């Protein structure tokens, strides 16, 4: 990018310039130092004996309990159960939600019918529905998946509709003057134009889905990370609780990174120069 020569001189001040980039090495260093800082504060509090072990175990204690969880309590099964529920619920919600969202964003009549109702339903917290779901469907995987599904669905619909509604009008018009039918415009303009945005929505909502699943598993579950967390609380195993929480964080981070990479790879026309 062309920057005025005058600015280039004051290289050290680049980070003060709004939205200008910093070197990848500095970026990585800053990222790592934030984690290092967290670890340092944590170590100080625990090894320094400032807080009670029962409330906050030391980092090494967490690692130990992680190992026991895997070796003695088959933690991998719980992780798989949780991942399975999140992915099935989320993928179903994404398929249904983006299809409905595209239609609502495209056709005003459908918008009038669905949009106000969905906006209303969206503000009802899905966690409050868990007792109802248990009453209706029981406590099995289907109930957990339903929580994820309904927790994600409405946000996906509304955000997709906004994304689709924002497709530039000139693109639709150009396409009509090139002989597209209304359906052709939907297929070959509206869809490709809003796909990157839809994938970004998926990324965002998947992040929320990880939080719903734990709520669902805290209530009436016999497997899953949430189940392990609630059981550990009962037995006052604080380090297991923290290990469970960290596991979710790591899982969330991994899925997010995978999606982020995939999106960049899928839409080269939308990123970079």
């Amino acid at each position, binding site marked *: 990018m062309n920057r005025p020569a005058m600015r280039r001189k004051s290289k050290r001040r680049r980070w003060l310039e709004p939205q200008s980039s910093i070197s990848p090495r500095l970026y990585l260093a800053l990222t790592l130092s934030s984690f290092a800082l967290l670890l340092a504060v944590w170590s100080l509090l625990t090894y320094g004996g400032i807080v009670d072990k029962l409330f906050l175990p030391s980092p090494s204690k967490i690692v130990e309990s992680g190992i026991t969880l895997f070796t003695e309590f088959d933690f991998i099964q719980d992780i798989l159960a949780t991942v399975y529920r999140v992915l099935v619920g989320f993928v179903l919600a994404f398929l249904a939600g983006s299809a409905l969202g595209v239609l609502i964003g495209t056709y005003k009549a459908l918008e009038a019918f669905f949009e106000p109702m969905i906006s209303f339903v969206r503000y009802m917290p899905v966690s409050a529905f868990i007792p109802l779901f248990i009453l209706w469907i029981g406590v099995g995987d289907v109930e957990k998946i339903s929580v994820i599904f309904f927790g994600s669905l409405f946000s996906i619909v509304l955000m997709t509709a906004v994304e689709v509604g924002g497709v530039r009008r000139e693109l639709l018009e*150009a*396409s*009509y*003057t090139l002989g597209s039918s209304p359906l052709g415009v939907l297929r070959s303009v509206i869809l*490709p134009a809003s796909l990157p945005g839809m994938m970004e929505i998926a990324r965002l909502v998947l992040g929320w889905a990880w939080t719903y699943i734990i709520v669902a598993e805290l209530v009436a579950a016999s497997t899953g990370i949430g189940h392990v967390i609630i059981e550990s609380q009962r037995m006052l195993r604080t380090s297991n609780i923290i290990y469970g929480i960290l596991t979710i964080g790591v899982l969330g981070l991994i899925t997010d990174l995978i999606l982020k990479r995939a999106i960049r790879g899928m839409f*080269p*026309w939308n990123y970079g120069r």
Partner: protein
Amino acid sequence: MQPKLEIRNVSKRFPGVKKKPDVLALDTVDLHIATNEFITVLGPSGCGKSTLLRIIAGLEEQSTGSVYLDGEEIDGPSADRGMVFQAYSLFPWLNVAENIEFGLKNKRIGARERKEIAAQYIDLVGLRGFENHYAKQLSGGMQQRVAIARALANDPEVLLLDEPFGALDNQTRTLMQEQLLEIWEKTNKTIVFITHDVEESIYLASRVLVMTSRPGKIKADIPIELEHPRSYQIKVDPRFLQYKERLTELIREESLKAIQE
């Protein structure tokens, strides 16, 4: 003879914004355009040129009147009236070649023939080597050339261009003018071309229309009687300069009015 395009009694009123009065953009425009005419439209900024073109394209609905193509009233956009927009309108997810093939695909032309036609128009607008570039990777002028190639490749009977060369540098602009003129001389396309450049309007046109400041009306309708094929040298021909003087004067009056308003 039946005109190719007939614009009969067309007005356009835009609803006012925030309780301001309505904006009358076009006021009872009447126009006959014959097959193979090259019409250029001059007028001050905001006088309704784009609005008129969009109504002909079927993208905007007129408030009164009708537009006829070959005697049939138009109702919405279609591939028989190609359009090059004032601003960028390339499909960002398609590369240059795919953009140009977009309309051909709609016409169900086979992949091989599409490729050939696209290559031909890529050459025409001087973008060979950029077939696989996305819009993002092109300069503004290059994007506009792709938009022109895309409209031309679709071979519409009527070609509507809204200040298509506005973003180009002088050299490229002159070359593009020559190419467009050549295409028009070879085919029997009917062209309506909006510009604010007086020289361009004369050089290209068989007829120049001058519009008044808002509400837009046709103020003058001036046939350009310069022979074809025209080369750029004609721009120093005394007759050319006479046209230029006259049109400059007409535009000046209207621009003054528009500003004093």
